[in-house]
């Protein structure tokens, strides 16, 4: 444990040092290649802009690696595994998991009660808006990292750090070969219990033990505590990482479903910044939106039939 902690601290320290060194390079690079970058247009945005107000000053902005860097080779760790540290933007669901994950409208096999719940939910009531963790496979416009720790015993825990969206809970992916605890010993949590392994160059993450308090998207797609996810992360070049995502929830879905998301790398030298979501959250005041969770907390508004 102590080694794991030390390893983690070492990784963070190295990241900070690399970041500090890369900052100037990034600015120089931006100036030198600006016209070219402009002409090449935008990288795919993980978030849909449809139906939203113009996202300018009031929107978010996270630079991505430009194509000549993004098309470069996959960087590797000293042990030969791909370096998945990023920072990344995207790679999950945001506005609508069905659409974001590559399905056609209506293809997500939600059970009738879950479909009904999704339709009854209002975007303005997203728990995430009150600074709760976004959980899996949600992404937002901010960057995030896999932090691959190494300890005296070899590969250590992989930590997932989001600039915004962790809400104080750092996701841990145990790489030491352990199994999930028995279901009756698992306290459902926002990030669940994740175990990982390498299959060639693909990081496979199996997670159970989620709570039912987060939404997959702003559309309000629900799940239950029976949620089981399998992520298969493959970095295909410097700038691209694919998330082949298996979504399984016998409580909310008729059958497991396969989704696909793509994360994009930030320019070399980029680093996460501090983000304390609850610092000054005035969400809802401008439109007089009530906080429906203040009295009853977060969680399913409707219990699924099987759990009645």
């Amino acid at each position, binding site marked *: 444990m102590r080694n794991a902690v030390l390893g983690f601290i070492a990784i963070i320290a190295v990241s900070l040092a690399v970041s500090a060194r890369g900052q100037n390079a990034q*600015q120089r690079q*931006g*100036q030198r290649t*600006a016209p070219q*970058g*402009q002409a*090449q247009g*935008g*990288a795919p*945005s*993980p*978030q849909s*802009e449809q*139906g*939203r*107000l*113009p*996202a*300018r*000053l*009031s*929107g*978010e*902005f*996270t*630079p*991505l*690696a*430009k194509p000549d860097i993004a098309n470069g080779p996959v960087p590797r760790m000293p042990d030969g595994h791909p370096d998945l540290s990023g920072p990344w*933007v*995207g790679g999950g669901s945001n*506005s609508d998991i069905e659409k974001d994950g590559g399905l056609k409208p209506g293809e997500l096999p939600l059970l009738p009660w879950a479909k009904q719940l999704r339709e009854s939910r209002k*975007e*303005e009531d*997203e728990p*995430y*808006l009150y600074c709760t963790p976004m959980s899996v496979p949600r992404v*937002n*416009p*901010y960057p995030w990292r896999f932090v691959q720790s190494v300890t005296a015993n070899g590969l250590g825990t992989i930590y997932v750090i989001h*600039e*915004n969206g962790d809400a104080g809970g750092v996701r841990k992916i145990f790489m030491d070969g352990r199994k999930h605890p028995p279901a009756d010993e698992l306290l459902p949590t926002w990030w669940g219990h994740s175990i990982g392994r390498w299959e060639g160059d693909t990081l496979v993450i199996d997670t159970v033990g989620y709570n039912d308090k987060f939404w997959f998207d*702003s559309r309000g797609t629900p799940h239950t505590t029976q949620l089981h996810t399998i992520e298969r992360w493959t970095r295909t070049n410097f700038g691209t990482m694919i998330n082949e995502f298996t979504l399984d929830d016998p409580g909310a879905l008729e059958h497991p479903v396969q989704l696909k998301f793509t994360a*994009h790398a930030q320019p070399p030298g980029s680093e996460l*910044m*501090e*983000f304390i*979501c*609850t*610092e*000054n*959250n*005035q*969400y*809802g*005041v*401008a*439109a*007089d*939106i009530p906080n429906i969770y203040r009295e009853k907390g977060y969680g399913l508004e409707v219990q699924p039939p099987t759990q009645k």
Partner: protein
Amino acid sequence: MKTTVGILAAAFALFGLAAPSAAHHSFAVEYDKEKPVQGTGVISKVEWTNPHMRVYIDCTDEKGVVTTWNLELGSPNSVIRRGWKPSDLKQGAKISFKGFGGRKVLTRAAADVLTLADGRSFAGASGAPDGTPEQYGVGAGVPIP
């Protein structure tokens, strides 16, 4: 000044390679695109805070009545990544704004463009086709008819 412009230029040039997207939440939930607002006044407070930074602007009309506008921007991180510096927004400085009013509280608005007295304009230079200056007039912080 020169440095600022350079960094801003770099930031705007990078815009095409960025992942611009809706912020912490969908603005349509809180703000009304049918309620464009604008004004000129003095910065009374700047909050470089999460999840969104806020700029408070006191606008005085011809009768001397002061209205304080609470303008919501993106996260401080996002604003800094665009090339802004904390020193670019100073309490007491003259500033013009354009934005979209809150659905219920008009003076709580989503900022779209901020223009400083020295002419530097934030956000408008991104080249985004929306919110052209023609849509706005100049005034003391009033809804645009």
